[in-house]
């Protein structure tokens, strides 16, 4: 099981890969909404490159799917990589009837209550995308924690980019 914490710590260690990945994504993407992506943000969570080959043996595929999705500053737009990861999640969810909790988060900049609203908007964007992919809204709960549950306590771009996220649980 890949926990969000494990993802966060592996993210820290592969920040260069992520930066490189985001550059590639930005170049390769046909989607206009990724054009203004800040290349300092890790848009692609490269965890499968690092961990999947050594961990596959008896793990169910579902547990290897991405469960944390990152966002740009003050944005709730889903990135191309997030959409791809959510397609895989939707495919898994269509085969089960378990309920899903989508927890939205923001970085520390700006006010706490506005960040709660921003976190909710991000989690709703994920819920809307999954609903379009055939996941029943009745199974999804959206909860925003705003900036109250940071992954990183660092007040810099790296810390902030880890905290702007939606976690699927």
């Amino acid at each position, binding site marked *: 099981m890949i926990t969000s914490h494990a993802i966060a710590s592996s993210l820290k260690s592969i920040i260069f890969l992520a930066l490189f990945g985001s550059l590639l994504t930005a170049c390769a993407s046909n989607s206009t909404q990724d054009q203004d992506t800040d290349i300092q943000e890790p848009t692609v969570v490269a965890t499968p490159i690092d961990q999947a080959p050594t961990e596959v043996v008896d793990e169910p595929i579902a547990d290897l799917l991405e469960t944390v999705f990152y966002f740009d500053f003050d944005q709730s737009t889903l990135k191309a990589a997030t959409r791809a990861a959510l397609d895989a999640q939707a495919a898994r969810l269509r085969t089960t009837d378990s309920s899903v909790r989508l927890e939205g988060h923001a970085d*520390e900049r*700006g*006010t*706490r209550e506005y960040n709660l*609203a921003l976190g*909710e*908007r991000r989690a709703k964007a994920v819920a809307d995308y999954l609903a379009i992919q055939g996941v029943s809204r009745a199974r999804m709960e959206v*909860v925003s924690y705003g900036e109250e549950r940071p992954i990183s*306590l660092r007040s810099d771009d790296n810390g902030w980019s880890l905290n702007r996220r939606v976690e699927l649980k």
Partner: protein
Amino acid sequence: MRLAVVLRRVVLFISAVMLAVSSYADLTIEITEGVDNPTKIAIVPFEHRGKPLGADLAGIIAADLARTGQFEVLPRAGMLGLPRSEEEVFYRDWRSLGVEYLLIGRTSLQNQRLELAFDLFDVHRQQRVLGQRHANTVLELRALAHGVSDSVYEKLTGIEGVFATRMAYVSVNGDPASGRSHRLIVADADGARPREILKSDEPILSPDWSPDGRHIAYVSFETNRPAIYRQEIASGIRQQLTAFRGLNGAPAWSPDGRRMAMVLSRDGNPEIYVMDLATKKLTRITNHYAIDTEPDWTPDGLSLVFTSDRGGKPQIYQVALDSGAVKRLTHRGSYNAAAQVLADGKSMVMVHRDNGAYHIAWQEFATERLIVLTRSDLDESPSIAPNGSMLLFATKYKQRGVLAAVALDGGFKYRLPSPNSDVQEPAWSPKM
């Protein structure tokens, strides 16, 4: 037998309180920026007779006045004498030290009865300008000292003193990996006597005092979802006011204490509502697909200011409660949020982004004149003192969350760091 049980409970309660107190420390005050021409005052240590008091009243008063930024207090070491009565005051000595006002006092404690007398002198006019006598059987020494500070401050500035007020704030300990504990604290406005009124492993935010100062409303995630609670401070008795799907946030008591503005996203996205606290009936105030949040009341109770990104970026708007008419109040900068209206209803303070940094700013309604009050970054959660002279806010200092204060004219600042916690979400109490 029954008495023994009661006594044991009292002892248990007291130990619990002491444990709670020992787990976090007093905030200490560090003055970071002064003003150009403060009034120079000397506060002579009070003469005391009888059983020891265990508190330095003159020291508390000196700290109170220094904390306004409007006074420079003469250090005790610089005093040429320690007068105990008017006959012992040599004006020339004090004038030579540049002192403009002189405060002396006497206390006595006998048979649980505390007597306090003080006199305030105008050194230039060489006359007593204020004198009071107090007798007190409740030994709330800090409150007594703050009362003297209020009298002196009001006499010399014409502004109501708020030294006996309190503040609420949230103290956070621990790191994200092992989990963080959240405490809602109520302390004196000078950071002394902190008391924990709620502790949770889940986030607590947005404390707001009732106008009578007896209750605090706040948002707690203790059920793994946000909900608004109202807690009576003295008894600890609390009530969950909302538990709707989605956001339940930003509680703001109306000036008459009967209603509460709040944010709920139960209808799909964040909207401002007003709850009648007696009937719990909700009235929806805003209706827009954008984010609407952070309501605060105008003093007349007839309208709310709030944050909305309906224009693309967060800005401050005002909505009239009777007509629902909305108008935009801010036009400078790409981020204005968390407005708090001053008691005269003519201006507000808010979080204002300037060159990527988040400051506290003041804006006049009629002219839209805007003044940035703070220079630190990541400033948020402004909360105005009940006399409108200063505001508390939260910021970061050396990678820790700290509380800070700034005068409404921007000229004076102090920080209230906590030695071992992140402190945030200050709320200045009303005058009680």
